[in-house]
């Protein structure tokens, strides 16, 4: 007994770290809803009020939640529902139907899914039979029979709402909204979408808060450790450089998900030997996040491939973005070799062709008009998929890059 108590008081550091990472990962990976969504208080209240009216008073409503990806639309709805379902009256009455535009790709599937989730009487086991027309007629009949005071309200959640709008004739949407506008069974339609051009907007904004995301809950086993951790997080947030990184990230995107990814990177660097997140960790994570994928890819190329890229860059400069083919690139490369009168990079034509194909496979260059089999491979027109800045950056970091190649890349003319 006492032994256990002791253990409770001072868990080994390793275990604490594991616990901590587990809790924070759960939180960051959206498995656990935060107690209270941050910065969307007004919207939360509004939506809650609206849904409650449907559930309690039987008033039909329709809401569209619009916001950029990762803004927390689903989280908002989930937390509203969680709060709503805590009320007993609501819990007993409300029926829920969850649809996703990516899963229910046409009205036929959507109808079956609705019928299944509502457990209407034409559900056999877990399947719905019958034709599309039958199902539609059945569902409409069912909804028509209800009236505002006696039948249970139904909540329709349409995730990826914009995809439903692409269905033929928008039959499902018309009927749902028609039901919500007539004296039939009370329904609430909640659409979630990131497309602003869908209909109207139920405004949706948010303010970023960093601290709350990383603070620990009260019931963490080792209090001392928890205290230390929270202290260090606070200190971390006051650090100038960390703030800079976070601000830069914030400037770039106001997306919860990318922030979570970013913080995950920090978190995974916490080990027994280093039980707190240091400023350096954050900087490193930032560096990883902001790194340019294509420029990194250039580091793995051979000198020949790099030279071809540089030749393409020069061609782009000269011809102002006109497409090129292998022959032109090879000629440009030969010019460079002639100028240097250096036989070090003198490659055979097949070798150059191979390097060229490799670049195409890496999608650093792409053919202009699909892969037309008619033209010979050497003369197929290509475009470079890299920006000049990316090439220059990659050259700076390229391990043991020959100076003459570097100089050739820097030189303004071929």
């Amino acid at each position, binding site marked *: 007994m006492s032994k256990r108590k002791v253990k409770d008081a001072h868990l080994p550091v390793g275990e604490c770290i594991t616990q901590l990472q587990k809790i924070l990962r759960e939180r960051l990976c959206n498995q656990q809803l935060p107690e209270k969504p941050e910065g969307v208080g007004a919207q939360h209240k*509004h939506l809650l009020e609206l849904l409650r009216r449907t559930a309690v*008073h*039987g008033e*039909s409503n329709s809401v569209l939640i*619009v916001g*950029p*990806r990762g803004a927390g639309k689903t989280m908002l709805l989930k937390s509203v529902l969680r709060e709503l379902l805590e009320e007993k*009256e609501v819990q*007993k*009455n409300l*029926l829920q139907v969850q649809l996703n535009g990516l899963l229910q790709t046409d*009205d036929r599937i959507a109808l079956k899914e609705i019928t299944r989730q509502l457990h*209407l*009487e*034409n559900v*056999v086991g877990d399947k*719905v*039979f*019958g034709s599309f*027309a*039958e199902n*539609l*007629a*059945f569902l409409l*009949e*069912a909804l028509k*029979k*209800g009236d*505002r*005071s*006696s*039948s*249970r309200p139904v909540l329709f959640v349409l995730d990826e709402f914009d995809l439903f709008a692409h269905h033929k*004739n928008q039959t499902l949407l018309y009927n749902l909204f*028609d039901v919500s506008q*007539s*004296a039939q*069974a*009370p329904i609430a339609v909640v659409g979630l979408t990131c497309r*602003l*051009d869908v209909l109207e*907007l139920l*405004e949706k*904004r948010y303010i970023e808060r960093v601290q709350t995301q990383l603070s620990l809950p009260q019931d963490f086993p080792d209090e001392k450790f928890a205290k230390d951790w929270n202290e260090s997080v606070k200190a971390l947030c006051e650090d100038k450089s960390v703030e800079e990184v976070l601000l*830069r990230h*914030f*400037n*770039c*995107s*106001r997306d919860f998900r990318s922030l979570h990814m970013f913080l995950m990177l920090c978190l995974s660097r916490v080990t027994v030997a280093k039980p707190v997140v240091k400023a350096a960790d954050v900087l490193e994570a930032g560096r990883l996040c*902001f*790194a*340019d994928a*294509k*420029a990194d890819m250039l580091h793995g190329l051979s000198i020949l491939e790099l030279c071809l890229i540089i030749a393409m860059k020069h061609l782009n400069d000269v011809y102002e973005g006109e497409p090129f083919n292998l022959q032109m690139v090879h000629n440009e490369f030969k010019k460079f070799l002639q100028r240097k009168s250096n036989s070090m990079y003198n490659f055979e034509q097949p070798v150059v062709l191979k390097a060229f194909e490799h670049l195409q496979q890496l999608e650093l260059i*792409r053919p202009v008009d699909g892969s037309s089999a008619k033209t010979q491979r050497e003369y197929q027109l290509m475009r470079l*998929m890299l*920006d000049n*800045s*990316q090439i220059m950056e990659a050259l700076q970091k390229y391990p043991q890059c020959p100076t003459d190649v570097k100089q050739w890349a820097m030189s303004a003319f071929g």
Partner: protein
Amino acid sequence: MKYWTRLQVRRVYRWRGRPVGFDRRLKTQEYSALSISVDSVPQVTVISAGQNILIEGEDEDQPYVAKVLKLMGDESGQQKKALVRWFIRASEVPLSKRKLLGRDPHPQEIFYYKGRSCDDEVDAESIIRPVQVLHLDAAAPFPESCDEDTLFVKMSWDSKTFKAVTSDQVDSGSADSAPSHLKPSLPPSPPCSPPAAAPATQGPSCRVLPTPDPAVMRKASCRETWSSRSAMSAGKAGRMEAESLHSASKLSASKCLSAKWTTAARTPGIRKKLNMSSPQKLSVDQDVLDRLLNEELESEGTLAQRLSASPPRAPPPHAPPSRLTPLKTAHSAAIALKPLSVIVNRRTSSDVDSPPSPTRTRPVQTLQEKEPLLSDLPELDGENSPSLPSGAGPRTSKRMSARLVSSRIRKQLNLLENHLDSDSDRDDQDQFVPLRTELQSSSEEDSGDEEDEEAGPPKRRRRGQGGGGPRTPRSRGQTVARTPRKTPNRKATPSTPRTPHRATPSIPCRSLPARRPANILEEARIRLHVSAVPESLPCREAEFQDIYNFVESKIIDGTGGCMYISGVPGTGKTATVHEVMRCLQHAADVDEIPPFTFVEINGMKMTDPHQSYVQILQKLTGQKATPDHAAALLDKKFSSPTPRRETTVLLVDELDLLWTRKQNVMYNLFDWPTRRQARLVVLTIANTMDLPERIMINRVASRLGLTRMSFQPYTFKQLQQIITSRLDKLKALDQDALQLVSRKVAALSGDARRCLDICRRATEICEHAAADPSAPGLVGMSHVMEALNEMFSSAYTTAIRSASVQEQLFLRAVIAEFRRLGLEEATFQQVFVQHQALCRVEGLQPVSVSEGLSVCQRLGACRLLLLEPSRLGILQRVRLNVSQDDVLYALKAD
């Protein structure tokens, strides 16, 4: 059952005998009889006044039934007319009214027609042949087996209600007009055969249930007729479903018990059940019966058994009518006899093993129906308890003797009766459990049985499931299905599991009642909701009157026509038409205009334009058919001349969606009203005024005609009036605020729905803003302004303002690049150069290309930018989805 019609054989009609009367005014001669002969057959059928006949109708299988009052011909003998009194078949009663009957109609049941809308003069050459019509007392059961030509009348139908009808009434038509000296030359059934006598000779009377509650009995009886039918079609699925609901209410307790039961214990239960339903075992029951009814019955029982051997044909025509009365009264007096009808029906339906009757009616499914059935299960166990008479006796009448003993039985069952009369759910547990503990097992058997059934012969069952069964008939259906005679029927049903088409579409009821509005704003919100049906439609009086006059005149004249109604959304088109229909329906109810049928279809509410045929047919007749078949049936219906037809008013909403390439749906819809016999009025609604000219080909547009009506958008005064009338003196909205809303909406669209929505939102805002939630103030100018801003504010502006710094920079870079190029399109690479430059100007660290791309993709996902597929990388082209001015405005306001 096929009747001969003119299509198959040519019939020749001739007057028989001399004219017996002459009407000077109409110049018609009255004849006493008409002979019908078929070309090839020497036999001649003679029709005379007072006889019941079949008349060609829309449905070959279901010809009209009528009684001839008078036969007339003009002097030349060319035209032959008959004055008739109509009977109506159950299938001809409008679908919505059929439930008024309260039970399933018998397939051969007809109703005495008292409506006025039918022409009672028919062409005599449409007469097919005579038919037997028997009058039955309202409470009397239908005779169990009879030939197909016998029809039964119990009730009358006056297009509103069913009423019991006496035999005199049925007769009366002929009494005044039929010449008395005429003897029917064919032996027709007398219009009034001894009604009570027929069932009395057929029904087994000994099995008396202690449940005289007539309502329950009626339900049970219709269940019975149904169940035998469903036994072949009821699917496993339906049963499983039924079980779930079933178990929730009643069997929950017994189910728990049944879990304990071993399969061995179940077997006897099954056997017992078989006892009950299989006819071979009747003798067993007979013992019980005998013990119950003493010796006096025994002798009668055997006699009756002998009687039952002869098929229950229609009784001899010369049966003295005087005998009817005492029997009838006896019948109604004997309470104990009422259950008898149940048994009669049960036997009837299971014995007759005839093809499923053409009118497949829908069983009423309630839990309650089950109860009387459960109550007869215990009876099987109760062999030694005299209070539980059980078993089916011989199928013969012991009516009199039953009546004799009924009082005794009633005494014995006094207790039970009281129980059963009250709540039938409780009593079979309450009352039987104390009697015998075995009882529990019997109800257990019931449930255990069901499980058994499901587990037992699954293969057979799967074959047997047709349209899937409704829930209730399950337990009874099972017992019937087990009797060997049902086996051949099983193959008649389709084999694939399908949607149980008898499933009732409904949303479950809420467990807690909806809360009443608490304050004035909530009340206002309910009234302002679009779904609230206003008492009157202000500002649409002229349109209302036009449509009303149009439809009313067509109904009165019995002609058809088309009308096209157009108007932008939210101008009250559908609401006005519905209002018109409500008023007309009311007028029809008080007999100002002839009755009519209203059918509504909506182009949006169907999956395919051709489904409109299916929906129309289903709403008119309740039939289900494929689109092609339905179109054929409707076409036939509207083109064939029929003596009695109510006008049909068809509302087609969202007409533009019925467009097909060949436009055959629209063509048919507009062509039917032009048929002489159709009596069809078509009202069509669509948004665009010039729809006929735009999408219809000439021959369709021409049939639509020129009766057009256009609903203009509401002006601000009208909108104001609409809201005021909706609120109806409810002081919730400030006058100025109201005017602001209506002016704003009228300037934009004139959409009343939008206007109502804004007002509703304003009340919400007001409620939130109010400090004291119990006493919120009036909705004022500020609340309305806020609601308007929410509704009309551009989503894009909000989105741009809340975008991240880099996203805003990117938008600026896009505009800068557009200005530089002088084009509205640029590649990402070009924009990115501008972006980098802007970053440096703003003092931000330049972003990498990958990050720039992700910024660009996020803007594309919001549709602020239009992008090419992202696999093009930096080469993808970028366009703005908002105007440059909007972007600059949104960015400047920061």
